[in-house]
């Protein structure tokens, strides 16, 4: 063993570096404090078990007497999610090109597109739903606009990242022969990024279906309105039917999108 090289080794992890210690202490304090602040107590969970049992007893057996209305609300929920997602994908596509470091025509558009995508992504969908309910009124349109904005935030980011991760080789080959920017985008960038684009789009549809259920709770249309009404009227057996219907819808959408995703990947 050549000990003369010892000093050339990169440094080991050094826990005792003095400037790290206060940071570690603050993190540990914050985590411990968080546990106490949220009043997490094992006994309160145990004590609430009888209420939980009572609630589940009232859920079952589910009441299917309003199944027609539940199904039509469920279909409307899916339609809100579908239309909102499609609009969101179409709008996020050009934005994501500007928001991609490698494709953006200039820095100003890059930062502007990034800012729009960040704004749409960081504001929670429930806040957007309240905003649209207040501005455009109660009903499915508020739900569609909320899903659309949420999808722009989601797809805008992931589409942009997909464009940035594309193998630069084919792009370089087309640039080298003098192909224009649009040709390079259409012939090299988009085909290479296609699996990621499809993947992100399908995930955003799944996400939109789950979101559109919750959005109904604030009046943005769909089955959430039915669920809120049933819960407010203590019709838990009816609520059970609605929850079951939502579960089946989410499951079907996830299965179908997973199948489509698999088919797309197979082609590659």
């Amino acid at each position, binding site marked *: 063993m050549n000990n003369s090289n010892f000093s050339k080794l990169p440094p080991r992890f050094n826990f005792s570096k003095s400037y790290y210690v206060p940071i570690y202490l603050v993190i540990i304090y914050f985590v411990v404090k968080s546990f106490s602040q949220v009043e997490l107590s094992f006994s309160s969970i145990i004590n609430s078990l009888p209420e939980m049992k009572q609630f589940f007893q009232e859920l079952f057996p589910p009441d299917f007497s309003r199944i027609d209305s539940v199904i039509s609300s469920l279909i409307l929920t899916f339609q809100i999610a579908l239309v909102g997602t499609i609009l969101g994908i179409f709008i996020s596509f050009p934005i994501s090109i500007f928001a991609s470091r490698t494709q953006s025509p200039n820095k100003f558009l890059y930062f502007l597109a990034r800012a729009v995508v960040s704004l749409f992504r960081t504001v929670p969908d429930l806040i957007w739903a309240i905003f649209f309910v207040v501005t455009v009124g109660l009903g499915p349109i508020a739900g569609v606009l909320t899903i659309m904005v949420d999808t722009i935030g989601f797809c805008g980011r992931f589409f942009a990242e997909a464009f940035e991760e594309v193998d630069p080789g084919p792009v370089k080959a087309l640039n080298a*022969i003098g*192909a224009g920017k649009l*040709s390079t985008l259409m012939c090299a960038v988009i085909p290479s990024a296609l699996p990621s684009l499809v993947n992100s789009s399908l995930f955003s549809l799944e996400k939109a279906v789950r979101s559109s259920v919750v959005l109904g709770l604030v009046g943005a249309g769909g089955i959430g309105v039915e669920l809120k009404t049933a819960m407010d009227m203590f019709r838990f057996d009816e609520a059970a039917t609605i929850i079951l219907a939502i579960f089946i819808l989410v499951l079907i959408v996830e299965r179908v999108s997973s199948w489509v995703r698999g088919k797309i990947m197979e082609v590659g």
Partner: protein
Amino acid sequence: MSKDNLVLNVSNLSKSFGDTEVLKGVSFSVEKGEAIALLGHNGSGKSTLFNCMAYLLEPTSGFIRVSELDFSKLSKKALRNARSKIGFIFQKHNLVNRLGVLSNIIHGKLSTDPSPRLWFQKFAPSALRLKALNLLEKVGLAHIAGKLAGQLSGGQSQRVAIARALMQEPELILADEPTASLDPQAGTEVMELLYKLAQDEGITLVFVTHNVEHALKYSNRILALKAGELVIDKSTKEITKEEIDTLYE
């Protein structure tokens, strides 16, 4: 050397990255129909010269003329048009894996025709589809016309890249270590094909290689760089083994 016959003229070309001078006053001319091998060890400036020759990298000083066009004086658009005369073959084939072989070949024509019909072979004009298929036949791969580029072997991909370059009807082909990512047999086959097609079509060929055997077999002139300077510019017939050995000392 007749001026009319000049395809490429590199004059006093220098390129620096910060304080590092990678190319130092390189000058040479290439005549129509020549096959030139560019040798040199790693870091000698071969790839930088390759990129400068097509103005993919802007030289620090000196000029490059391709078919009498001074690249340094061209606008962006004119430079794009001028590049259409140059076919490129890279170390890695640089095909779009998710597109079909025929679409990839047709993309070679995007250098002169930006029509959206050329984006996918399914919408391309019949004449171009047929031309692409004929080129695929020339590189011995007509039977894989319906495949995706991602399904091909390394050797097949590089042949398709050659067909894409020929689709441009270039005056000059620049190939940067076209066999570097291939096994020896596939490498020799690709080099043989590239040389033969260039000779048959009367296309000038400049290829960068580390394979001395390929350089001696598939060129009629050898250029060599050492520490950014052009140290050899000789006919392949005249070059000696000792001269080549000095490059790798």
